[in-house]
C-alpha cells in the first residue's frame, strides 16, 4: 500500500470518529463540566473532522484504487462462504467527496446552532445529538459493507428522531419525530428484505461496489457485490441487463430503504413535518445528511441495479419531483416551502440516478446541499428576527432590516433556479441542466426499449419534459418565497419593527454557504466534481458526465429548453408577488386553478390518507388482535378451565346431598382442624411457606419410607 492511501484512511477514520468522541463527551459530561462551552467544543471538533476530510480530499489522487479495510469481525454467518459479516471501511473517490461535503456542512451548521440555540435549556444535548447525527452520516459514507451501512442507516434514523423531537414538550415535534422514524422503518423493512436476498445469493459478500477494482490495504484484490454478482450471473447465463427475478426484486426492496430516508413518494410525508425540529436540524437534514443518505445508497448500488429497478427508481423520482414542486408553490410557511422544494430537488437526484445520470445526480446532491442548507439557515434567521413567526404572508420588506440574510437568500435562490449567463452560472446550473440533458437521452432510450425501431412511445418523453417544466416551477416558487419575505412593504409592520440581522455566529455560516452555493460546482468541480466523475463506474447504463458523453443534441436541446427557465420563473414569481399575495389569491380563484390549488394545498391528501386510513387500519388490526386475544383465545382457555372444574364436580358420586357427603365431612374436618390450627394463622407468609414445604417434605419422606418398606418386603420375599 502506498503511503498516500494509508494517510487517507487515517484521515477519514479520524474524520468519522471525532464527531462520535465529541458527542459522547457532551452526552456524559456536557451539562456538568462544559455548559455553554459545549457548542464551541462540538463546533471545533467538527471543524477538526472537516479539516481531516478536506485533507483527505486534497490528498486523494484519481488514479488510486478503491481501498477496503474489512477486518473487524462482527456477526458470524457460518452458513455462508463469507463466514462473517465484518465491519470495516471503504475509501474511494465517492467516499472522499462525500465526507468532505458532509463535514463541511456539518461544521457550518454547528456554528450556526451556537447562535440559534442560545438560551435553550438543553443546549449541550442538542450539540451531542447533532454530532452523533453527523457521525452516523459519516459512518454511512465510509461503510464497507451493506450490513455495516445499515447500522449507521438506523443510527441516522434514531438521531434524526432525537433532533426532530428535540422540543418534545410540544405536540408538533413529538408527532413529527415519531412519523419520521416510523416512515423510515417502513423503508427499512424493505432494505432488510433486500439485504437478506443479496446475502443468500452472494454467499454473504455484501461489500459495497466501489469505483473500479477494489483492494485491501496490502494490495490484494477484493471482490465486492458487483464482481461476485456478475460472476454468479454469468454462471446462470444471465447478466445484470437480463437479470433473474430475484435481482430486480432485491434492487427494488433495497431502494425502499432509500425511499424512506430520502423522502421519496410515497413515504415523503415525514420530511415536511420534520421542520418541527429546530431550524439548524432542518438545515442539516435537508442537505448533507439523512436525505443525502438515500441518494448515496442508490448511487453506490447503481451498478448492481437492473434496468427494471432503474425504471422504478426513475418513476419514483419523477413523481416526487413533480408533486414536491406543486406543493412548494402554494405553501405559506417559509420552512414548508423549502421542505417541499427539497422533496422536488431530491426527486431530480433520484430521477437522475434511475436514468443513469450518476455524475450529475451526485453533483446535484452536493450543490443542493450547500444552497438548501443556506436557505434553511436564512429562513431560521428570518424566523428568529420575526419572533418565531413562519408565515410568508406576514413577512415582506425584510430587506431593510436584514440585508445580509437577504443577499444570501437571493444568491441561493439563483443557485437553485440554475441561473446562468453565457454558459457561466451558479452551482445549480451545472448540475441540474446536465441532469436534464441526461434525461433527454433516457427518454429516447426508454422509447427505443418499449418500441424497438417502431413508432414513438410518448410516455417515455415525460421523463424529459417533466423535469424541464419543474425547472421553471422551481424558479417561480423560490422567487415567490423570496419576494414575499424580503421585498415589498412590510405587511405586518409590528413584526418587522423589532427585526434585526442575525448574530455573527449565524451570519458567518450563512455567508460561507452562500459562497459555496455559487462556486460548489464550477470551481468546486476540481474538488468533488472530478472525484464524482472519476467514480462513475464503467457500466453500460451509466451515462458519462462530460459534454461529449452526454451528446451534443441533448445538451443543445436542453440548453434551449431550460437555459432561461431561471429568468422566466423568477421574473414571473417577482411580478406576481411583488405586491403581496392578493394577485395570486385572485389567480387561485380561477376555475381550473382553484381545483389544483386545493389539491396542492392539501398535499394531495397524502397525510389524510396515511393518518386516517393506514394508521386507522393498523389501529383497527391491533384492536382486532387484542379482541381476538381476550375474547377468543383467552376466553377459550378460561372456558376450558371452568368446564374442567364443573366436570370434576359433576362426576363426583358424592354430590347430591351436600350436607352429608363424605366430601363435606372432609371439609368439616378440615374446618375443625383449621380452628385448632388458628394460632398458626399469624399472617406470616414465611411461616405458611415453611409449613407448605415442610408438609411436602413430610409427605415425600412418608412416600419414600413406604417405597423402601415395599422394596424390603420384596427382598424378604
Amino acid at each position, binding site marked *: 500500500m502506498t503511503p498516500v492511501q*494509508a494517510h487517507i484512511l487515517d484521515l477519514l477514520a479520524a474524520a468519522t470518529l471525532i464527531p462520535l468522541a465529541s458527542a459522547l463527551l457532551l452526552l456524559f459530561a456536557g451539562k456538568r463540566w462544559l455548559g455553554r462551552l459545549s457548542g464551541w467544543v462540538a463546533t471545533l471538533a467538527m471543524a477538526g473532522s472537516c479539516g481531516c476530510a478536506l485533507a483527505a480530499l486534497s490528498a486523494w489522487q484519481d488514479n488510486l484504487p478503491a481501498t477496503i479495510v474489512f477486518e*473487524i469481525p462482527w*456477526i*458470524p454467518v457460518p452458513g455462508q462462504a463469507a463466514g462473517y459479516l465484518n465491519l470495516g471501511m471503504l475509501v474511494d473517490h465517492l467516499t472522499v467527496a462525500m465526507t468532505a461535503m458532509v463535514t463541511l456542512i456539518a461544521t457550518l451548521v454547528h456554528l450556526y446552532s451556537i447562535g440559534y440555540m442560545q438560551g435553550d435549556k438543553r443546549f449541550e444535548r442538542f450539540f451531542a445529538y447533532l454530532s452523533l447525527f453527523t457521525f452516523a452520516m459519516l459512518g454511512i459514507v465510509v461503510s464497507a459493507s451493506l450490513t455495516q451501512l445499515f447500522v449507521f442507516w438506523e443510527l441516522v434514523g434514531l438521531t434524526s428522531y432525537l433532533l426532530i423531537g428535540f422540543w418534545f414538550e410540544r405536540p408538533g415535534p413529538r408527532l413529527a419525530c415519531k412519523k419520521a422514524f416510523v416512515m423510515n422503518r417502513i423503508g427499512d423493512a424493505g432494505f432488510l428484505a433486500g439485504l437478506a436476498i443479496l446475502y443468500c445469493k452472494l454467499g454473504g459478500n455484501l461489500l459495497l461496489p466501489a469505483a473500479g477494482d477494489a483492494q485491501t490495504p496490502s494490495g490484494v484484490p477484493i471482490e465486492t457485490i458487483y464482481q461476485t454478482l456478475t460472476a454468479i450471473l454469468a454462471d446462470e447465463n444471465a447478466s445484470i441487463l437480463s437479470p433473474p427475478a430475484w435481482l430486480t426484486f432485491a434492487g427494488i426492496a433495497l431502494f425502499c430503504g432509500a425511499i424512506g430516508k430520502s423522502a421519496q413518494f410515497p413515504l415523503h410525508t415525514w420530511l415536511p413535518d420534520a421542520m418541527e425540529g429546530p431550524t439548524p436540524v432542518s438545515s442539516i437534514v435537508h442537505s448533507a445528511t439523512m436525505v443525502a443518505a438515500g441518494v448515496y445508497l442508490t448511487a453506490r448500488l447503481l451498478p448492481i441495479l437492473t434496468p427494471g429497478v432503474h425504471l422504478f427508481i426513475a418513476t419514483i423520482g419523477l413523481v416526487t419531483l413533480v408533486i414536491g414542486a406543486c406543493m412548494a408553490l402554494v405553501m405559506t410557511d417559509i420552512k414548508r416551502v423549502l421542505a417541499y422544494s427539497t422533496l422536488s430537488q431530491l426527486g431530480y437526484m433520484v430521477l437522475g440516478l434511475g436514468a443513469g445520470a450518476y455524475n450529475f445526480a451526485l453533483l446535484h446532491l452536493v450543490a443542493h446541499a450547500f444552497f438548501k442548507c443556506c436557505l434553511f439557515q436564512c429562513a431560521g434567521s428570518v424566523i428568529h428576527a420575526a419572533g418565531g413567526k413562519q408565515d410568508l404572508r406576514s413577512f415582506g420588506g425584510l430587506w431593510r432590516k436584514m440585508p445580509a440574510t437577504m443577499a444570501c437568500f437571493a444568491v441561493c435562490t439563483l443557485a437553485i433556479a440554475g441561473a446562468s449567463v453565457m454558459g457561466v452560472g451558479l452551482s445549480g446550473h451545472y448540475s441540474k441542466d446536465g441532469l436534464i440533458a441526461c434525461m433527454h437521452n433516457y427518454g429516447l432510450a426508454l422509447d427505443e426499449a418499449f418500441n424497438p425501431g417502431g413508432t414513438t412511445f410518448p410516455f417515455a418523453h415525460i421523463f424529459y419534459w417533466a423535469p424541464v417544466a419543474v425547472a421553471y416551477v422551481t424558479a417561480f416558487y423560490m422567487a415567490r418565497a423570496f419576494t414575499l419575505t424580503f421585498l415589498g412593504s412590510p405587511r405586518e409592520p409590528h413584526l418587522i419593527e423589532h427585526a434585526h440581522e442575525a448574530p455573527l455566529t449565524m451570519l458567518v455560516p450563512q455567508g460561507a454557504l452562500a459562497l459555496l452555493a455559487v462556486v460548489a460546482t464550477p470551481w468546486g468541480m476540481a474538488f468533488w466534481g472530478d472525484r464524482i466523475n472519476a467514480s462513475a463506474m464503467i457500466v453500460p447504463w451509466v451515462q458519462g458526465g462530460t459534454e461529449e458523453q452526454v451528446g451534443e443534441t441533448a445538451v443543445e436541446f436542453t440548453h434551449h429548453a431550460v437555459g432561461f427557465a431561471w429568468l422566466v420563473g423568477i421574473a414571473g414569481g417577482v411580478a406576481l408577488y411583488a405586491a403581496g399575495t392578493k394577485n395570486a389569491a385572485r389567480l387561485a380563484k380561477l376555475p381550473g386553478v382553484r381545483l389544483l390549488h386545493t389539491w396542492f394545498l392539501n398535499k394531495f391528501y397524502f397525510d389524510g390518507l396515511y393518518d386516517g386510513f393506514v394508521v386507522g387500519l393498523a389501529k383497527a388490526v391491533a384492536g382486532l388482535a387484542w379482541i381476538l386475544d381476550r375474547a377468543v383465545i383467552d376466553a377459550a382457555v378460561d372456558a376450558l378451565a371452568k368446564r374442567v372444574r364443573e366436570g370434576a364436580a359433576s362426576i363426583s358420586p358424592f354430590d347430591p346431598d351436600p350436607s352429608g357427603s363424605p366430601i363435606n365431612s372432609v371439609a368439616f374436618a378440615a374446618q375443625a382442624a383449621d380452628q385448632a390450627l388458628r394460632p398458626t394463622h399469624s399472617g406470616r407468609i*414465611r411461616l405458611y411457606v415453611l409449613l407448605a414445604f415442610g408438609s411436602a417434605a413430610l409427605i415425600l419422606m412418608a412416600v419414600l419410607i413406604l417405597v423402601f418398606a415395599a422394596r424390603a418386603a420384596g427382598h424378604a420375599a
Partner: protein
Amino acid sequence: MPPLILTHLAPHALAPFALAQLIEPGSFTDSTTPSLLDAVLPSVLNWMLFLPALAGAICFLPGVSRASARALALLTTLGSFALSLVIAFDYYFNQNASGVAAVTLKPWIESIHANYHVGVDGLNLPLVLLTTSLSVLVVLAAWRIEKATQAFMGLFLFLLTGMLGVFVALDLFLFYLFFEVSLLPMYFLIGIWGGPRKEYAAIKFFLYTLAGSICLLFVMLGLYCLTPAGTANHVNTWQLVDSGEQDSLISESVRALFAGPSTGLHGPTPAGPYWLHAQAFFLLTLVAFLIKLPAVPFHTWLPDAHVEAPTPISMILAGVLLKMGGYGLMRVTYPLFPDAARHFWLPVATLGVVAILYGGFCALAQTDWKKLVAYSSVSHMGYVTLGLAVLTRTGFDGAYFQMIAHGITSALMFFLVGVVYDRAHHRDINRLGGLWLKFPGLGGWSLLAFCAGMGLPGLCGFVGELLVIFGTFEANGQLPGTIPGSAGSGGFMGAATILGLFASLGVVITAGYTLWMFQRVFMGPERPEAAGYAPITAREYGIMAALGMAAVLFGLVPLLVFRLTDPTFYALASVLGLN
C-alpha cells in the same frame, strides 16, 4: 506507512470490537492435558447449581432477619455468578474435543436408567451466564420488597436452582424434574407478591406450564416404552448428549428410531420404525415448549403473569423463564426428532411469523405499559420460533442470540416499568408523560432499552433478528413444500421467502408500538403529579446501567456469545442436517 488509526489504533482503541478477536479460544492452555481446574470444574458446577437452594433453605429458618436474607441472597447470587464465570472462562479458553465440560455423571434412579448428569456446553453456557448474572440484578431490584422478605428471597433462590438445573441437566429425566421444580417457587412468587389478580395469574401460569409438562411427560413415557428393554437404547433414553467423541446431542441410535423417510445419496431410505410416533412426539414436545416460550396461541398466560408479578419477578420471568422454552426446543425437540422438524417446518415457521406480527399488533393495542412490554415479548420470541423452524444454521444462531438479547432487553424494560410504577402507582400509558424532563437519566436509559428492543443495529436486539431473517431467506428452496404458483419466479418466491418478508415487516410494527409508547410516557410536558416522585436511586441507575451496557456490548460484540456456542452448534447443525 500503514494506516495508523484504522489498522493499529482501531482494533485496540475500539476494544469491544476486538475483544473477542484478540484472544482466540483455546489459546491459553494445551487442551489435551487436563488441568487441576478440569478436575474441580464438576464440583464448581454443582456448587453453582445447589448453592442457591441451600441459601434459600437458610432464608426460611426462623430468626433470619430481612436484612440478612437480602444480604444472603445477594451474596449467593454473586457467588453463583462467580462460579458460572469460572466455568465460562475455562470453557472459553480450554475447550475439550467433546464440547461438554464440567460433567458430573452419577447413577440416580437406576431402575429407570435415570442419571444425575449435569454439565455445560455451548448450548447452555450462555443461558447459564444470563441466569446467574440476571439473578444478581433481580435480587438488587427486589431490595425494597418488605412483605415477607425472607420468604421472597428464599423462594427466589429455589427458583434460581430450578432454572439453572433446567439448563445444565443433560439427562431428560433430570431436565423434566428441574422443569417442574422451577414452576412451584414461581407460582408462589406471583401468587403472594403479585398485584390485585395475583391468584388468577399464578394459577393460570401454573396450569398452563403444567399442561405443557404433561405433554413432555407423555413423550418421555412413550420414548421409554418404545425402546426395547435390555438394549443400549433403552439405557440411553434419557441421555441428552451422546457420550461419544463429539457433542452430538441425543444418542444417535435413539434418534435413528424416529427417523423419517429420506431420499439420500444412496437412494431412498425407508422411515424408521417409529416415524409416526416421532411426528406425534415432535408436536407434543413442541407444544410443551411453545407454551413456555410462549408462542401464539399458547401465550395468554404471559400478559396476566407479567401484569400481576412484582417487578423483579417479571424480570426473571421474561429474562430467563421464557428461555427455557426455546432452550427445550433446541436441546430436546429438535435433536430428538430432526426429520419430524423438517416435516413440520412450515406450520412451525408460520407460528413464528404469526407471533411476531400478532404479538406486535396486540402490543399496539395496549394502554397498560407492562402489558405492552409483555406482548412485545411474545413478538420477540416469535423470532426464536421462526429461526428454529427454518432449519438453517444462521436461523439457529439467530434464534439463540435472540434469546440472550431478549433476556437482557426485556429484563431492562420490565425494570424500567417497575421504576416508574413505584413512583406513579399506575401503568396507564395515557396518564403518564414528560418523564424525560423529570428524569433525564431514566429517559436516556429507556431510550437505549427500547431501541435495543426495536432491534436497532449496534444493540443486542438487532443481531438475532437479522440472523433469523437471513436464515429464513436462506431456507428458501431447501425445505419441502413451497407456495403453489411460485414456480414462475424461478423458485425464488418460495414459502420461506414469503415468511421472511412478513418477518421483516415486524420491524415496522415494533417501531410503531415502541415509539407510540415512548412518545406518551417520556415526551411531552412534565405532569403536575410528577413533582412528588421520589428521585431515582443509585441502586436503580446501577441496574439500568448494567443491563443497558450489556445491550450495547452484545450488540457490538455478539461474538462473545457465538464463540461459546460455536462448537456445539456445529454439532447440532450436523445432527439436524442444517443448511
